[in-house]
């Protein structure tokens, strides 16, 4: 994989508040990357640094061949910005302008040649489905269409990297579905970062996930990779015999999450494996005379993976309050 975006020990502080602390990751060309975290996790700060709006307090960020940070805050900042398209949570729209006029302005600002602008605007407008609204005043558009205009301005100069900060916030359900398809379709030719605290958005649109919590990167990988990390810790076993007897024969380090007698002399156990492997569990049960009917790792959803990761960080998820935790329960 050729990395198009790379950060190394990236940090950002606002006075005494640390928004990002030592974040390091690499993302390849064409990936759709979900930036996941609770409110205040540092998602927007990360995207603002990648967009060039903010400069890092420490560490470095690299987009393509351009690098910022670690004493290299020079001319690369402008070159880097030319490779990035950015949609903040609130689309930066001049409401008095018509869509075509606005896109023309943004395109010219980003260095698109004047003679290329009409074609570029037409192509991008078709891509984000605003081609029938180009002559409307932006202030008269619905929030969904404003977001689409926002994405159009981010795509107009054909950037290598597109950053979308909470692209589905403030949208109604129909608009969310459309936006999800749009974000998904942007991948392949360009790298897309989309931040969200809605797990379903990330689950349905992203190839890989960055999990941020209180400014720190807790995990980075594909959904499968993150799932494997969690699944290794949870196991479902169906045994011949009583559940209460089987529980008594489990090796140390296997914690019972759930147990039940299924009838017909069969019972089921769901185990959390702390410092023991599934082979040891199977060996212990067989050695004690329990026939194993089924043994399978539990496939967890993204929500559990996320909560496991966040709770593993000192139980901070619980401390962040029920409203915020509830927001993550979309999966």
């Amino acid at each position, binding site marked *: 994989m050729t990395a198009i975006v790379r950060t190394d020990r990236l940090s950002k502080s*606002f006075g005494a508040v640390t928004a990002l602390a030592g974040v390091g990751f690499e993302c390849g060309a064409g990936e759709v990357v979900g930036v996941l975290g609770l409110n205040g996790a540092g998602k927007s700060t990360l995207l603002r640094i990648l*967009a*060039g*709006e*903010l*400069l890092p307090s420490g560490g470095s960020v690299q987009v393509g061949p351009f690098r910022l940070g670690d004493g290299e805050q020079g001319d690369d900042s*402008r*070159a880097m*910005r*030319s490779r*990035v398209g*950015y949609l*903040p949570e*609130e689309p*930066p*729209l*001049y*409401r*008095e*302008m018509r869509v075509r006029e606005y896109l023309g*302005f*943004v395109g*010219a*600002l*980003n*260095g698109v040649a004047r003679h290329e602008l009409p074609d570029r605007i037409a192509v991008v407008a078709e891509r984000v489905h605003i081609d029938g609204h180009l002559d409307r005043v932006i202030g008269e558009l619905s929030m969904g269409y404003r977001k689409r205009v926002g994405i159009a*301005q981010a795509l107009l100069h054909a950037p290598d990297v597109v950053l979308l900060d909470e692209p589905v916030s403030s949208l109604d359900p129909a608009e969310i579905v459309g936006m999800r398809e749009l974000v998904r379709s942007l991948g392949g030719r360009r790298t897309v970062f989309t931040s969200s605290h809605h797990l379903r958005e990330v689950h349905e649109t992203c190839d890989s996930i960055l999990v941020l919590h209180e400014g720190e990167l807790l995990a980075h990988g594909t959904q499968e990779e993150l799932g494997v990390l969690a699944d290794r810790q949870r196991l479902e076993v169906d045994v011949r015999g009583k559940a209460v007897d089987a529980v008594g024969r489990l090796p140390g380090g296997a914690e019972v999450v759930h147990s039940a007698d299924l009838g017909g002399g069969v019972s089921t156990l769901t185990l959390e494996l702390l410092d023991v492997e599934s082979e040891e569990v199977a060996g212990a049960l067989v050695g004690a005379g329990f026939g194993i009917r089924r043994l399978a790792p539990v496939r967890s959803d993204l929500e559990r993976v996320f909560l496991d990761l966040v709770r593993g960080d000192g139980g901070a998820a619980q401390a962040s309050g029920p409203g915020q935790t509830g927001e993550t329960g979309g999966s």
Partner: protein
Amino acid sequence: MSTVLLIARRELRASFAGLYGWAILALVLMLDGLFFNAWTLGSQRPSSEVLSLFFYTNFGVTMAAAVFVTMRSFAAEREQRTLVLLLTSPAGDWQVVLGKYLGALGFVLCTVAAAAYIPVMVWLKGNLEWGQAAAGYLGIALAAAVCTAIGTFCSAASPNQLAAGVAAGFLVTLQVLFWLLSGISDPPLDGVFAAMDLYREHFEPFQDGAVHLKTLVYAPTVSFLFLLLSVRVLQARRWR
């Protein structure tokens, strides 16, 4: 340069796109007309004195217009969250500041041009001295450049439009009150304050038709200083 002009053109169009810009224009015309009516119409003053009085009032009105126009410049974009569009574009901070400055200055000069019917009336009904008119308008343009730069800086540094307007109003007023400070100060400060006074030291000779070289240096220098400060403010915001 094309990026600067692009931003300036959008800024200028935005001023005319809403009620705010037209309200400023109407206010400028009303004040210029009222003062002209009150001080000169019906009087037996010579044309040169009429023109001098017009430039005197137009100077004050233009300063106020510059404050009202520039208080929106950066502060409104920040409130409407559109400033990020400029800050994340490949445009440099100097290009952004210059573009917004030139756009605002362009609008202020439009308000000056709109009141040009008064010198035209003097020309039609009296004996207009073209040299005095040219010097007066040059002085107005230089004063507008200084006040717009001050306003641009205040708008870049302030959290909202109101704070930007108050700060710019204070600094612009200070520019014309330096002569008071010079009167109560001892040397060498009195000379420094006198040299910084925008009206008495720099503009007053222009309204009477005299072009002073020192003002041709003073106005661009002060304007540059405040634009440089505006750029530094933008850069500091990236680091904050």
